[in-house]
């Protein structure tokens, strides 16, 4: 059987989740590999969420928030931006290849930005193959 990646997406309630809903309403099609989890704001994404996803067998993680300047909590997504920069350093150190973690702004009317992001991360992760958490757990064990 071909490899079907499992990807978790964290979407803020106001723009990104609405944008993803709109993609469905507009009947755009995208890869069925991404499971959305709704947060109130992308700025509320705890780093543990991303690590947990990889621990439970995700092959990739997509984080979506409002366009910069449009966060419904004024500037939550600037915090997301900073946090994701740090987090990506950490995940890379843990041996999680860069394309497996992705940040994408999706506005409430940007349905295609969402489906494009879904398709892109699915293709990238498919090309990388399954994420082998055993290997990383051993390596990260060495690191700590």
């Amino acid at each position, binding site marked *: 059987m071909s490899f079907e990646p499992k990807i978790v997406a964290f979407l803020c309630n106001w723009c990104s989740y609405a944008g993803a809903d709109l993609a469905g309403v507009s009947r755009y099609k995208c890869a069925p590999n991404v499971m959305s989890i709704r947060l109130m704001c992308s700025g*509320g994404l705890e780093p543990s969420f991303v690590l947990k996803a990889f621990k439970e067998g995700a092959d990739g993680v997509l984080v979506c928030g409002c366009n910069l300047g449009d966060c419904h*909590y004024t500037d939550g997504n600037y915090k997301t931006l900073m946090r994701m920069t740090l987090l990506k350093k950490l995940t890379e150190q843990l041996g999680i290849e860069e394309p497996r973690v992705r940040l994408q702004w999706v506005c409430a009317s940007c349905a295609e930005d969402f489906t494009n992001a879904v398709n892109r991360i699915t293709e990238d992760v498919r090309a990388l193959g399954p994420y082998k958490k055993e290997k990383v757990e051993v390596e990260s064990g060495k690191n700590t």
Partner: protein
Amino acid sequence: MSILKGKPDDDIKIGVYVCHCGHNIASTVDVEEVARRAKELGEVSVARDYVYMCSSKGQNLIRQDIMQLGINRVVVAACSPRLYEQTFQNVLRESGLNPYLLQVANIREQCAWLHEPGPLATEKANRLVKGAIKRVIHHSPIEEQSVPVFPATLVIGGGIAGIQAALEIANSQQIVYLVEREPSIGGHMAQFDKTFPTLDCSACILTPKMNEVARNPYIRLMTYSEVVEVSGYVGNFNVKVRRKARYIDEDKCVGCGICVEKCPWSTESEFDADLGVRKAVYTPFPQAIPNIPVIDKERCVYFLKGKCRACEKFCEAKAINFQQEDLFIELHVGAIIVATGYDVFDPTPISQYGYGRLPNVFTSLEFERLCSPSGPTGGQLKLADGREPKSLAVIHCVGSRDQNYNAYCSRVCCMHSLKYSHLFKEKTGGEVYQIYIDMRCTGKGYEEFYERVQGEHVRFIRGKLATITADSPDSETGEKLSLSCEDTLLGGLVNIPVDMAVLCVALEPRHDAEQVAQILRLGRSRDGFFMERHPKLDPVATMSEGIFIVGCCQGPKDIPDTVAQASAAAARALAMIVRGKMETGAITAAIDETLCSACKVCNALCPYGAIFFDEVSNVSRVNRILCKGCNVCGAACPSGAISTRNFSESQILAEIEGVLV
């Protein structure tokens, strides 16, 4: 707090309800299979599928299971929670279950509609449902709360927006505080001569409303005043207002104007867009409300040099008081309406248009004053040398629809440009050129007004103005300005000689918008105007509960739209007052005090100032009424002490596990 993080109680009984949504879901996802798979999970007591879960029959299935089987956690797999979550929450509520013991799995918008029919779509639906099941185990009841609303409203800004909002509320016999920064209310509308599209005289329609404000016993008017501090929250705001010293005792002044008459010192009049003069003691315009002058400390020679006091000598009412000081007043209000309006764009930076350099180039606001009978020229159009102009060019979109300045359209300029054509023709009978990019005349009666002006022999040139220079090629006619402009309809460059040019400048956010936004904790959109809660469905509320924005502080608009918005906000404020209480959001952060390490990281991060530090207990605490549940604090807390109700770490981690394993 431990209910949020603690382990779930023992006898959890989950009911799972999978919706076909007619064919909408069922044609892509094998809904029966989804229900079957759900039932295989140990925690699930009952799993059903039904053709329309949101129908009353579907809702009854859930209701019956709660009542008869003792279901105490509900998962609905259907359309987006953004659509029917509240409906299903009500089903729980009516069945005696806390509404937050529900989780919705979105298998329509974000599954069935996004994917091709087949096993992969069903597999994804299974995962989403399993995520919801694992998550709902960690749900706990959330107590909904309401706060009392203090029956008084603050309106900031006394332009037409603030006046309208204040009158609507006061006419319902509720107290309004109207705070205006200038010595008089009226705003920009008071500066205009006529108003499009009907050409009513602005003062004639505005002055009666201003007088009503002065007379209405429910309105406490504070002019020459500013809001300096706002604390509290919806229903209970504490507001600090600075009443600037007028140096005139408002209780004694009878408004006779003798002080103004006798004052020997003059300066440029802001009200006349600096084209006219006013005294150092002045009322900005004859119809000012209140009709009480102010002494401009920056210009008054007594304040500057210690000598004069002419006004004091002549004031029979003994109202002049040079010892007056700024007063700080505390107000208690339940709702706040912000109506601070706009500033006009200063075209000096577009140096090729010659504004500030060429004497016969004016801005639109200046032109309004030149046309006004109460303006610096008594309503006569005059050139710098005193002659009456024989030709006029009206330039659209100066500082609007221009990537270098403001990308947006200022919405009113096409219409007031047409108004100027008409006024110029009426006053001088001369030539008028309209240099426009697109004509946007979209309001009621606006297209008709456009047609009317087209019939008045006005020349319309479609294109963007390149330059205005002083050297006229046609010196015999005595014209002084030469406009060089692209005519995109004829194709080519045209030169137009005119006597006078008016730059229709953009409406911009107030220069102090950021300061006001900070005091009131308002967001601003990319264009700098205050941000509404929702651009379509809630254009008057803001993300700060109980604070509304009306008129041009929210974005450029004409007077009819401004008035409509002001009335809408007044209705919202009145609704709060009439009910006497407000429900506040249930999704809020909670701090586990036993884990809080007093680092205060969260205090500064909160965009609503909802977290404060309790020095006595040495822990941070959340004001649940201010909190909006974004969890920015929770994500940053190094001790893991903060958790947001219904979006807690344990809930999300369980959901992640559910969708993956």
